[in-house]
């Protein structure tokens, strides 16, 4: 695959000089997504790192119309906004920008409500697998065994399967992406934007400070998550699941990279016990069994 920017050549609408930590994966995601979206977008940013990343008023480094909003309110605000633009005959699909805490936990009712109503929204969940803005506390999207500020002994429960939950809402489009694979992410954003109704993309955004790795490795960790099949790249469109090229090898256990390669680079899994590694491997196996069943049409959602 060429590393050229191909046909996605909109100017990035993230302005330099943000308040993000160096190597921030959310910034990488926002920048690429803005290149895919182009000009005609409005962002609703729920509480999280991105509330701060924009910078200090009266300046904002997000070169979009932005509505900042309380933690649990993003999808509902976007729903209202979508209707308002419709009443004003403007073809704008509001974009909700939320972290995994805002998606899996506190904002879940609002997310589910807007999805069930199939409001015309593009929902982006930037999943760094914890409440990073407060100092890295476990969320419903934190994986098994990960050490966080509120689970210093490692999380005891598995990561919530948000993409599957969203598929069960029968919305027209669900996809996952990773900041390790930006072309894939941009293609998915372009597609989601063109579809009428509720579209959901969950982007894995490995956080150097919460996951404890060298910030220069952000893209690599994003790639390793996919290569070890910890994070699947999939699309679910009109009831049909497809697996992105980067994840096809995960269908067969034997072609998966060992999970250890993903874990050893992160401080949150430092000194991890073999039981936890085994637990994560089982989690990955079960996840891919599910994905495979849906992919092969054995399970219809």
């Amino acid at each position: 695959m060429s590393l050229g920017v191909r046909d996605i050549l909109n100017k990035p609408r993230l302005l330099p000089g943000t308040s993000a930590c160096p190597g921030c994966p959310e910034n990488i995601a926002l920048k690429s997504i803005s290149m895919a979206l182009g000009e005609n977008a409005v962002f609703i940013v729920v509480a999280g790192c991105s509330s701060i990343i924009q910078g200090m008023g009266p300046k904002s480094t997000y070169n979009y119309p932005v509505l900042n909003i309380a933690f649990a309110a993003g999808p509902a605000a976007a729903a209202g906004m979508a209707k308002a633009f419709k009443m004003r005959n403007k073809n704008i699909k509001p974009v909700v920008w939320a972290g995994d805490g805002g998606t899996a936990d506190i904002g879940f009712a609002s997310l589910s409500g807007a999805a069930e109503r199939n409001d015309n929204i593009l929902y982006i969940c930037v999943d760094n697998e914890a409440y990073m803005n407060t100092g890295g506390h476990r969320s419903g999207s934190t994986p098994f065994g990960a050490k966080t500020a509120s689970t210093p002994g490692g999380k005891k429960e598995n990561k919530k399967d948000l993409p599957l939950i969203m598929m069960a809402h029968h919305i027209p489009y669900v996809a996952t992406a990773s900041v390790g694979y930006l072309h894939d992410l941009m293609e998915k954003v372009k597609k989601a934007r063109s579809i009428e109704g509720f579209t959901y993309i969950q982007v894995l955004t490995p956080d150097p400070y919460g996951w404890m790795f060298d910030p220069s490795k952000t893209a690599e960790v994003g790639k390793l998550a996919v290569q070890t099949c910890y994070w699947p790249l999939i699309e679910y469109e009109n009831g049909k699941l497809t697996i992105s090229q980067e994840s096809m090898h995960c269908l067969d256990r034997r072609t998966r990279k060992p999970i250890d390669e993903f874990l050893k680079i992160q401080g949150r899994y430092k000194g991890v016990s073999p039981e936890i590694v085994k637990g994560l491997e089982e989690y990955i196996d079960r996840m891919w069994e599910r994905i495979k069943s849906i992919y092969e049409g054995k399970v219809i959602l």
Partner: protein
Amino acid sequence: MKMISKVISGNEAVALGVKLSRVKVIAIYPITPQTYIIEELAAMRDKGELDAEVIRVESEHSAMAAVYGAASAGVRVYTATASQGLLYMHEMIWWVAGSRIPIVMTVGTRAVGAPWNIWNEHTDFMSERDSGWLMAFASTPQEALDLTIQAFKISEDEKVFLPMMVGMDGFILSHTKTRVYIPSQEEVDSFLPPRKQPYVLDPEDPVDIGNMFQPIDYMKFRHSMHLAMLNSKEVIKEIGKEYEKKVVPVGSYSSLNESYKLDDAEYALVSMGAWSLDAMQVVDELRNMGVKIGLYRIRYVRPWDEEDIKRKLGDKDGILVLDRSVSFGRGGHLYLELKATLPDVNIKGVVTGLGGVAINKDSISSLTKKFIEGKTDGEWFYPSEVEKVELRSPRYIK
């Protein structure tokens, strides 16, 4: 021109007011006793009488978020709630006020649990008085309609740019059907200009609403809200006068609050909401008995018309404040406000009518007489027949 009148409830009157105000996005979520405002609006929408989008949200928090999102995109919006719903919205209510986006909401007032209670009181409404919303309270279905239409114009005034809620006693007003004069669309259009707001989300001219600011800026924003609230008093009066002239000339909106037979009064009753009508009746009856008494009806909790209260009530020998809400251990909210406004006047407060306890004219009359005789020392009042009832509540037993 002959005005059209109909016998309708407070809820129906409000729904008509919303429709006449050309609202474009409405978020609806059911909670007694406001539910049939939103049912009416949904029905109007489905019949094609209302050119608006109706969003059936999954919670009150989302209801306020949805109208906030829509309003920030530049259209007139509306929602309604009560009780637990208002409390669930609380976070968004503050968020909206801080962002200075005009929004109008109705609160069909109702008690707050636990225990469950669906009946009228004002505690839910009064619990939002520090949020930065303008807060008016109706005493009749007519006033609920009038204030709803005025609320859009007031909140969208450039001197104000704050959201506004209109309270209405749950059941007592929301469900009471009585004659209401309904303005024509032309009359309302001549009064209410197209939507105005300080900024709109638009890709052609991007703004970022509500990102982080330095402490000094934040404090300036808060100060600005404070001044806008103070300046809204003049705006409310001007708009009230214009409303009387152009829309429904049956109410009196040239002042924030209503004064009844206060000029030569030695004593005054202070109240808010539907029971103020009963209190007026009491004033008439006591005047017939030679007691010089009047009524001051609070219509606006925010802004608080300090100057008018000082002018109208500052010289009274005694003031009795009736409250349908309480700050535990301190007393009724209106009483506390009055006391802060007139520290040197003899003011007593009575908390009563909570959780739907019916307070009739006779109760208000006996309370007032006791007060004038100097027997009331600030208290909780139970109607006479209730005192005889053995409370069925369990008591704490060691």
